[in-house]
């Protein structure tokens, strides 16, 4: 079995593939990476082995993600390459990838072989990424999984500053005190995420007339997906695998394609 582990800024995502059986996904596991990623990864690996009743030698593992540099475990594969591989091997429509991660947004342009042609990432502020919406939800006292429920109810989305997560959080508190509707604040926050993404998308995919592949935790939001479609006038899709596991999946596939010496 082959396992790809994406050690993200907030979550650790692991995917196990059965290479003898058309690379079927055997297991997907998730853990938290904040604090001690090494310990969290070890626990996750032990859980996987336990669940699949695998001996150490039966599970080949590779690591990727924002936090994997801090691990002592090897081999490590570059995150951007894993995302490209994950989309390339799991989807037909695969030229522009938009990954909304915990702390970073990545826009990747790949060619027909899955090679990265260009990419862009948000800069030092995490505004517009997963942690941004988490902070807003926390201020509003709602669960992050409920954002679509609220956002779709909104009739007048309220624009939220997207330059800085902390400013946005403060702004939300003001808006609540002014009596603004939660659904309008949530929809405004989602729109500020797409507002941060669209310039980046247009920067490297100005000529896009194909399908845009959305990955990462916030790719699950239908509201964000629809807003991107409306504003860019193109089709926005999720990969055939769970979008949050795309990078882990690409990591497993890269491990399969590359000998350990080459990584």
């Amino acid at each position: 079995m082959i396992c790809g582990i994406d050690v993200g800024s907030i979550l650790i995502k692991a995917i196990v593939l059965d290479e003898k059986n058309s690379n079927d996904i055997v297991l997907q596991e998730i853990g938290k990476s904040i604090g001690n990623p090494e310990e969290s990864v070890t626990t996750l690996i032990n859980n996987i082995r336990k669940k699949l009743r695998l001996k150490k030698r039966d599970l080949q593992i590779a690591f990727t993600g924002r936090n994997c540099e801090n691990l002592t475990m090897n081999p490590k594969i570059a995150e951007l390459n894993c995302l490209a591989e994950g989309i390339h091997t799991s989807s037909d429509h695969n030229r522009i990838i938009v990954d909304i991660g915990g702390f970073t947004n990545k826009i990747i342009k790949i060619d027909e072989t899955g090679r990265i042609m260009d990419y862009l990432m948000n800069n030092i502020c995490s505004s517009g990424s997963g942690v941004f919406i988490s902070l807003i939800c926390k201020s509003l006292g709602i669960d992050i999984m409920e954002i679509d429920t609220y956002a779709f109810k909104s009739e007048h989305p309220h624009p939220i500053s997207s330059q800085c997560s902390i400013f946005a959080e403060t702004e939300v508190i003001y808006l609540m005190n002014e009596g603004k509707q939660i659904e309008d604040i949530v929809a405004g926050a989602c729109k500020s995420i797409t507002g941060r993404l669209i310039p980046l998308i247009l920067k490297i995919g100005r000529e896009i007339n194909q399908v845009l592949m959305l990955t990462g935790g916030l790719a699950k939001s239908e509201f964000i997906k629809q807003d991107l479609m409306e504003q860019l006038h193109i089709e926005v899709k999720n990969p055939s695998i769970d979008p949050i596991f795309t990078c882990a999946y690409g990591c497993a596939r890269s491990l399969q394609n590359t000998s350990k010496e080459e990584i």
Partner: protein
Amino acid sequence: MKANVKPVEMLYEASQTTLGLIEGAVPKHEMQILKSFFRCMESNLRIKLEQIAEGKPIIGHHFAFPSEVFSCFDAVPICVEAISYLFSALFTTGSEKYYDLANSWGHPYHSCTSQKGMIGMALEHNFIDFDVIAIPSAPCDNTIASYQFFSEHLNIPTIVADMPYYHNSRGYEYYSNELESMIQELSTILNQEPNYERLRQSIIYSNHAVENLAEINNLRRSIPCPVESVFNPIGSAVQNFFSGQVEKEIFYNEVLEIARERVRTKKAWRETDERVRSFWPYMSVFFDITFCEWLDRKLGMPIVTDIFNYFFFGPIKNIESLDTKGMIDGLAYQSMEYPMVRQSESFASVFFEDAVNLAHQFSADCAIFTAHIGCKQSASMIQLMREILKEEVGIPMLTIEMDIGDKRMTSLETIKKKVLEFTQTLL
């Protein structure tokens, strides 16, 4: 009364101790260029301090200025921007305290830190007692606005040479007249007659430096690159702090010898093989020069050149027989084609053409653009630069938003992470 030059004294002490440390602790064949720089720096600062102690007047100047003209006078030229960024590079506390002082005084946080360091020092009464300041109206509005602090708030006589927008014969002539007027004004303020034979000697030093840098750049085209990446930030300091002084000639001469020897013997000078040749269309990071060592040793990614380490002009010809006007004409031309001035003070196409030429000439595999928050006009060209380098040279460009002199805006760790990720997509 003795002039206050505490920042220069602090830099002298820092140069002395750093030189002692690297010469004592680092093996002889390692970090040769850095050692050469600190030897020149220590000597240059010592001489400056001795001259100031003798009571010679101090001329503050902008980095994009042909400071050779100051050698007409028995005075000590000191580059304002170099002081800010040398503090940033040499002290662990950097210049951040001074930037904060300038910001809290009312200077915008997004203006360039290259002048803000000195503004903060003045606000802390830890300043250099300039007798006069001389600047060009280039390369940006931000610069001119910042210098108003020195002229209006500190009442330091400030002379501005008006640099025209058009870089043509009429423009060069105009700027030459501006430099001539500036010399006359300086003569009045300093109460000294200009000595043009000293100017000639200063240009001779600079001519040698220009020739040597051209030869160094020829050698840097070799694969592997025979010059450490740290040459780029310290090269910028050399350009701006040693202009028209013998240390500039000495430094480039020593670097040239080191590079020649490395190319001749093909001897590896670092453990890591050269894997990716990076071209930096703008500047390298100043607030932590260890970053350059990391690029060389950890990534095998030399900086083959950057905006400050390539001259688009040659030496001033026939210097031995030139008359005064000829010398000033030559300096005016060099000044208008000076690194950053050439790219920022004229049409944007110059910046793009230079970047494309350099990326080709140095066989760059990629470009890295430091989008310095204070430099609005260069940062505004990022997307076009990306597209042009991709289309015309076929190389990708990474952009990192930062303040090249303030480690708090984008930390070194974040910069390294971005560069590492970029490298991984290239290999």
